[in-house]
């Protein structure tokens, strides 16, 4: 726990005094620079903590592999049949794995008061939320994307389709992390919030599932997949713009 607290304290340490006579514009720039620095420190802190507690990193990946394994056992070991359902299987498994990982996003920080310190620090909570979500994506979304080829190969996906699958999962999981950050912030402090969290975030995640599965399907068929990928990217951009604002507001509501 001491590592958690000291690193949080460092991220929030008071800024060195900025030049006093600076013009308004300079102080605005300094504010932005301070917010960015705080966000960078929060990001590094979350990454450091995750690498010291590797089980959090591995569990969603193991879950992803496990769900993928269920389908050949439940349906059929025939690769031709599995290939037909592979896009759906991969995306449902990725969606559930990223949902499972949301639990780690705020829980410990809310528990030991770090989140409260973030809210009181005077730094932009929106940027801090953005940093936390970015760390969450680096720790779950990106590894899931890198693991998707393995799961894909086990479902009979041709090798040529793998790059497309990696890109689509990587882009789609950005939006999943962002939507999840709102849901996780809203349900902070609710005991046994797992089912509620899934009820809140899954309906909002459906567009990602639709476009992601479509991109994967096109990749497997060897067709150009730019259209669904661009839609996924558009969702990610919209999410990056709006979700940290909403997550910051939700955290403030939860801390009241």
């Amino acid at each position, binding site marked *: 726990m001491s590592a958690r607290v000291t690193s949080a304290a460092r991220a929030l340490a008071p800024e060195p005094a900025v030049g006093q006579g600076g013009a308004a514009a300079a102080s605005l720039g300094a504010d932005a620079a301070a917010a960015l620095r705080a966000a960078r420190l929060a990001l590094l802190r979350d990454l450091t903590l995750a690498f010291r507690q590797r089980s959090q990193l591995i569990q969603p990946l193991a879950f992803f592999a496990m769900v993928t394994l269920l389908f050949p056992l439940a349906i059929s070991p025939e690769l031709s049949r599995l290939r037909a359902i592979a896009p759906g299987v991969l995306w449902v498994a990725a969606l559930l794995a990223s949902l499972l990982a949301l639990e780690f996003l705020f829980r410990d920080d809310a528990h030991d008061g770090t989140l409260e310190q973030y809210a009181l620090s005077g730094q932009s909570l929106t940027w801090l939320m953005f940093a936390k979500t970015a760390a969450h994506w680096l720790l779950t979304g990106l590894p899931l994307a890198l693991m998707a080829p393995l799961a894909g190969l086990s479902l009979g996906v041709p090798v040529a389709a793998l790059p497309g699958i990696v890109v689509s999962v990587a882009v789609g999981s950005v939006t999943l992390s962002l939507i999840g950050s*709102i849901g996780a912030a*809203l*349900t902070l402090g*609710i005991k046994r*919030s797992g089912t*509620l969290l899934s*009820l*809140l975030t*899954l*309906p*909002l995640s*459906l*567009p990602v599932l*639709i*476009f992601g599965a*479509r991109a994967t399907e096109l990749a497997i068929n060897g067709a150009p997949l730019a259209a669904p990928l661009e*839609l996924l990217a558009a*969702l990610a951009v*919209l999410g990056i713009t*709006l979700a940290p604002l*909403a997550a910051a*507001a*939700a955290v403030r*509501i*939860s801390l*009241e």
Partner: protein
Amino acid sequence: MTWTWFHRLGSPPYVYALAARLTPWFAWPAALLIAGGLAGGLVLAPPDYQQGDGFRIVYVHAPSAWMSLMVYMTMAIAAAVALIWRIKVGHAVAAACAPIGASFTFVALVTGALYGAPMWGTYWEWDPRLTSELILLFLYLGYMGLRAGLEDTQRADRASALLAVAGSVNVPIIHYSVTWWNSLHQAPTVMQFGKPKMALAMLVPLLMMLAGFTLYFVAVLLVRLRGEVLSRERAASWIPEVLKT
């Protein structure tokens, strides 16, 4: 123009009295319109030349589907007003909307499935509208689940309001992505609801039902709003005075 009428909405006793006064003005026209629409739709309108009498369920299905979206919009707007201007009554309106909207959504789904049985030969077709309705039902359930999960009323109000606003940003995206998804996997026999041009004798009862359902929603909302205000203000001194009369 002054803003007094707007500021008065911040006062719970005023809102309570206003809701009580307005309810009959919506309830009676709603009852008349729905009775007229049902008579017109179920008895007077001729049977459809393709769908026979089966099409008549549209008189309940279409207004419910319309209301399910409109209630969500009302809820999101009330929630946004409450969040932005910190008007507590807005939270009460949003909270009162959710069960009504979920009920309309449920009715739209059930009547849609019943409509599907004679038209498609199956109770459930992954038609984009039915699928969107189903997702909307989950959005309502999530909203109500979040409210139920948070014990503190104030926190439940603000958290669920944020969820409603975030959901309203997402509803059009979900709707269009579902439509896009459906256009890729178009089943050969899909028939769209209500697309063909309607004869006047069929259309007039439908418009009456739409208006009737809207007024009915407002009337029920006002009744529920009074309940919400009472339960939120149960410790206030004006309550015994109002309830005595």
